């Protein structure tokens, strides 16, 4: 197998930690390993490292350091924000509003709140680009509504939601607003104060930091229940001995993301557009999913008619290219991605989706290589496909 070439195009799934990040983490494993909550010198070093990381993450999103609470990742942050807000405000009401295209860390948490704890959830539709309608949102609000949670940037199709406008509506109705910004962090401009966000989930491993670390921004004054109860860490809001190396790594990654922001976005946008344009020209019967411009700078999402995604991923992998698909086969469920269905794709087309997400280590040559090879792969699978054969027979395909 031609595995020597390795082209990683799944940065939205996870990113490698940057070398600078790992370098900064290393001393904290074996030397500066103390418990940040303890009094002796070992602990003080850990505490200082923790403080610096908190400042760096806060700086990336325009927050005060005391508003940043470290967690074990995006999923925990999402769970915490939703359950914490729900249980804290139960007496006020039991209604929550979200969208149909949220990450499972949101959707499954809400399902759990519905089934096990008696909350009621409204799932807003999105348009064909994946955007929610502000009018729908206004209409969904009831007296019992205690929380609105809408993601900042969708992880599959890259669409950016109108966060500022959503926050304004939430504020007008005095409802808490949470956003899952796991995909947005480092990729779109975020200033939590300007945007009026009450809570925001972040994850380190999507911005070249280590896995197993994340954060929840909680605006000063917003009170939610704890999710992980126990010790007094994170100002008594999130128990567990602090993962100092991980947090230091996240801090460094945040710092790099802040400093390199402009460059990063420009480069990704350029390569992404090249990729989308190249594939669109080279492969007929292709749909581009997600909003064309209000979009994650590194996200390209295609649906190729007549074929199924898993085979594509395997053939791409054979050429050293890593991508992902919203097909049912790759997720192990019966249905293709809920996001693709929510933007109106038919099942059979959704099965043929391919997400290629690029990042800081992607090169122009990588993109060229994909544009050169993907058309052959798609054609090969179409030649095997009874659907393609039927489409040719019916004249749908020439």
């Amino acid at each position, binding site marked *: 197998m031609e595995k020597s070439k390795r082209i990683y195009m799944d940065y939205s799934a996870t990113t490698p930690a940057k070398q600078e990040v790992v370098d900064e983490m290393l001393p904290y494993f074996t030397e500066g390993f103390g418990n940040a909550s303890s009094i002796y010198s070992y602990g003080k070093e850990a505490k200082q490292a923790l403080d610096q990381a908190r400042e760096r993450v806060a700086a990336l999103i325009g927050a005060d350091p005391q508003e940043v609470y470290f967690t074990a990742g995006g999923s925990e942050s999402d769970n915490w924000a939703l359950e914490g807000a729900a249980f804290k405000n139960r007496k006020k009401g039991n209604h929550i509003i979200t969208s149909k295209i949220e990450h499972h860390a949101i959707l499954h948490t809400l399902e759990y709140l519905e089934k096990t704890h008696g909350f009621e959830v409204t799932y807003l539709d999105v348009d064909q680009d994946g955007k929610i309608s502000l009018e729908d949102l206004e209409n969904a609000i009831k007296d019992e509504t205690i929380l609105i949670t809408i993601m900042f940037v969708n992880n599959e199709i890259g669409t950016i939601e109108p966060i500022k406008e959503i926050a304004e509506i939430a504020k007008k109705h005095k409802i808490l607003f949470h956003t899952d910004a796991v995909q947005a962090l480092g990729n779109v401009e975020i200033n939590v104060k300007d945007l009026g966000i009450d809570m925001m989930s972040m994850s380190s491993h999507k911005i070249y930091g280590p896995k197993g670390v994340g954060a929840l921004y909680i605006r000063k004054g917003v009170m939610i229940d704890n999710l992980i109860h126990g010790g007094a860490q994170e100002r008594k809001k999130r128990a567990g001995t602090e993962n100092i190396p991980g947090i230091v790594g996240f801090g460094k990654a945040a710092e790099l993301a802040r400093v390199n922001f402009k460059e990063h976005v420009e480069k990704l946008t350029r390569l992404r557009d090249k990729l989308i344009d190249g594939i669109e020209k080279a492969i007929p019967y292709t749909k581009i999913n997600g909003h064309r411009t209000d979009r994650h700078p590194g996200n390209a999402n295609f649906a190729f008619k*007549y*074929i*199924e*995604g*898993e*085979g594509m991923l*395997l*053939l791409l992998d*054979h050429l050293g290219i890593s991508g992902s698909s919203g*097909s*049912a*086969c*790759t997720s*192990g*469920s*019966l249905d*293709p991605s809920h996001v693709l269905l929510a933007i109106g794709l038919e*099942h*059979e087309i959704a*099965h043929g989706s391919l997400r290629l997400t690029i990042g800081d280590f992607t090169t122009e040559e990588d993109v060229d290589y994909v544009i050169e090879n993907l058309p052959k792969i798609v054609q090969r699978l179409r*030649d*095997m*496909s*009874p*659907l*393609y*054969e039927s489409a040719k027979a019916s004249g749908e395909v020439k």
Partner: protein
Amino acid sequence: MQYSEKVMDHFMNPRNMGTIENASGVGEVGNPQCGDIMRIYLDVDDNQIIKDVKFKTFGCGSAIATSSMATEMIKGKTIKEALELTNKAVAEALDGLPPVKMHCSVLAEQAVKAALIDYAQKNNIVIPELEGYEFDDAHDHGDEEE
């Protein structure tokens, strides 16, 4: 999820991929909603021997590999022998399938049977083993996978 080398080989180099013009029997199972369609073409001679067989498949890697293996297993065999093809045999011949992918082998067995039924109907033959054969929904993807 991990495929055996055999599965990968049959996926990368599928045997008997294609169509047969004026086939003696054509069977199609699955549906695009669920992400798998298998279509099998048979060329059966007068001695009820499967002289040639081809497939077209829309589906994941293991769907293509099981189609390829199933066609290879019945090629040159009698109809009687082909009737004995089970999904387990296909999966075993591929050195196993991940649990979530077992339905692909079921689909392959069904596609063969569907082609045989079509052949029987076209030729006014009764194949007792296929009387009242039911195509269950093969899609029991299970619930415990990763």
